[in-house]
């Protein structure tokens, strides 16, 4: 069953050219979806539309079968269900707030009932951070730990969908693996929509893939078939541009 869906979505910034054209795809509950494309393909814009932060110029974004509304009460319930993790863990946490306050914000703003303390402790445990992190400030943590804090903030309202905008591209390689592992373990209960141009991460995490090129969907389907037998020339180019390690002695002579 599809949770989030875009049908014929187009988007243009004011007085600018269209950045998305006729984009249609569905996020199916329980199947992680990757949105793949090069820089400037419109991935982040699409994510903003999926988050209800901007409205499409044409077409609809639907959540559970109904188009997103602008009403406060509706948005509150929508945001409980759809949360996000951003690319840069250094700019996604307010430097003047303790981790405890950062994690309490969605609970307070989305009016989620129950005590904040236990919920925050549970979220920290879920992302493998120590419980005493609540009283610390973001600058006391490393990049990977900050991304864990951002993930904790996203999962604290108990969302069904987690939209992740290049969540590991700002991290070093070994940290990247741990964050991907964390997202994989979370995706047992949350459907992850991953915006990325890292096909390795996509293959590890997502069952479905949508390939965007200059604002259009050029390929969509199961990740395995998209990566194994790409139909569009653009996807083939994207696959060819993945850096490979060549074994010693097999380099081009």
């Amino acid at each position, binding site marked *: 069953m599809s949770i989030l869906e875009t049908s014929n979505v187009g988007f243009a910034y004011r007085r600018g050219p269209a950045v998305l054209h006729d984009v249609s795809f569905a996020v199916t509950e329980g199947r992680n979806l990757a949105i793949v494309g090069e820089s400037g393909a419109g991935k982040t814009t699409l994510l903003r539309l999926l988050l209800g932060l901007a409205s499409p110029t044409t077409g609809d974004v639907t959540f559970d079968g109904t188009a997103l509304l602008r009403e406060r009460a509706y948005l509150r319930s929508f945001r409980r269900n759809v949360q996000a993790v951003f690319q840069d863990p250094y700019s*996604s946490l307010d430097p003047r707030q*303790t981790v405890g306050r950062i994690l309490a914000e969605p609970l307070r703003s989305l009016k989620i009932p129950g005590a904040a303390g236990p919920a925050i402790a549970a979220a920290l445990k879920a992302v493998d951070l120590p419980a005493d992190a609540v009283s610390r400030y973001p600058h006391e943590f490393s990049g990977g730990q900050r991304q864990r804090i951002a993930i904790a903030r996203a999962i604290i309202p108990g969302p069904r969908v987690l939209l992740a905008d290049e969540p590991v591209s700002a991290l070093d390689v070994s*940290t990247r693996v741990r964050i991907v592992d964390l997202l994989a373990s979370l995706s047992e209960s949350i459907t992850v929509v991953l915006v990325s141009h890292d096909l390795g991460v996509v293959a590890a995490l997502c069952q479905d893939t949508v390939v965007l090129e200059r604002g259009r969907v050029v390929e969509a389907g199961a990740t395995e078939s998209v990566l194994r037998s790409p139909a569009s020339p653009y996807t083939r180019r994207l696959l060819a541009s993945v850096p490979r390690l060549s074994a010693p002695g097999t380099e081009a002579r």
Partner: protein
Amino acid sequence: MTAVVALEAITTATRRRRSWTLVVGLVLFGLVLATAIVSLFWLPYDPADTAGSRLEPPSLAHWAGTDRLGRDLATQLMIGARIALAVGIGSVAIGAVIGITLGLVAAFAGRVLDDGVSAFLDILIAFPTLLLAMLIVAAQGASLWSAVLAIGLAMSAIIARLTRILAKRILALDYITASRTSGTGMWGIIWQHLLPNVWPTILVNLALQFGLSVIAEASLSYLGLGAPPPNSSWGRMLKEAEGTVLTAPIGAIAPGIAIVILVLGLNLIADGLRDIGDPLRRVSARAVPAPTTEGPR
């Protein structure tokens, strides 16, 4: 290892020295503030009392000497402290309220309003404070309030432009987007994220502007655009000492030193606040490195 120890020593020393700037600044400012408060209850002489002999040098009876009318200069300095602080506090209040509000409006506004406000601010900043003061004095007459209004309005343009730039930069950061997806509304974002993050920089600037407003008030009074007699402001004392600066320099030196003490104090406070406001210096109660979960397991 030695390098780490050396680095720690330097950091601690720097921090200590910087906290000293705040302490020294507060002491200097406190000196002026205390003088102003005392002047409300007690003055050595009546400010209009011309009983002393003219241009007397400092003595036990007249700590800072007398002016050419035989009035006690220490009394005038004490009243001047009151005026300087009143003008500073008044203009900073006007500058902060108008400036921060206008800056936030511009930061949140659409392009047309933002451009309009920015153009208005540029004109106001380019407009000489002196001319603004003359216009206000022409409309309202020379008074303490005219000086406060002129300095406050000129300051509000500077604070508004600063607030706008800082707010725009912060609004573009991911933690604001994250706050929106966390369900926080515009006012919540302003109170919880925007103001706490722009405030330290603005506070430092307000302290600097306070110092500048003391100088501006002295300039306005010097030109006769400030508080009229019998209020003695430091600027007017300088003006009155102009003719006798070579024969009785104390009349010019004393208000000059008073201005330096207050402005230097405020600048040191601004400096100290800048360091305290840096979030990277803020460490939780237990200042030990967070245990890493990212290392090899």
